[in-house]
């Protein structure tokens, strides 16, 4: 996409894009965290890579993982 010449989206379209991007980001995060854990990453390493606290990433994802902790 040629962003240099295209007109910016309307506020309504841009706001809908923000909502869709958040949903997409959640899905990318869920998948990436699951694969990192499968490769043996620790919660601390994952947290640092995302830029959030270990507690935050653990709270968000521990329940989704087969092994729990």
């Amino acid at each position: 996409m040629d962003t240099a010449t295209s007109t910016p989206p309307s506020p309504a379209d841009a706001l809908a894009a923000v909502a869709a991007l958040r949903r997409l980001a959640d899905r990318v995060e869920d998948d990436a965290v699951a694969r990192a854990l499968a490769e043996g990453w620790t919660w601390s390493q994952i947290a640092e890579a995302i830029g959030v606290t270990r507690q935050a990433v653990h709270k968000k994802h521990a329940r989704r993982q087969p092994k729990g902790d």
Partner: protein
Amino acid sequence: MFERFTRDARAIVGQAENEARGAGARSIEAEHLLLALARGGPPALAAAGLDHEALLAALEAEEAASLGAVGIDAHAFALPAPAPTVGRLRFGSSARAALERAVRAATRQRDGRLEARHVLLGVLAADGGKVPRTLELAGVDRDRLRAAV
């Protein structure tokens, strides 16, 4: 909030949670209420061509269009199908607003009972967000649909 809900209306709300959970959503939103309504809810939805499958496709098309507006191709990410959400889901702001409008629509009735069609009216009356955008993209006349409910 749910005291005046009929059994059918309660079933719609329960099914909306299933729809959200199955989609791996973080919260129950208006589109999940609409998906629940499309599974044997008020006949006006099916009459407008919106059965569950058609609605799912329309919601996905809207998601792709919204991402496309900022240059993102959702299919560029080789993501697995979302895993169902674990644990209890909360109502997101769009679903709460829809249910509040449903309650207001029901209180205008003589017996004040909140039926599934009031939930549908509440969902369809949104000013903006995922549901109105999806219906517009799918070529559904929202005012006509509301009149038919």
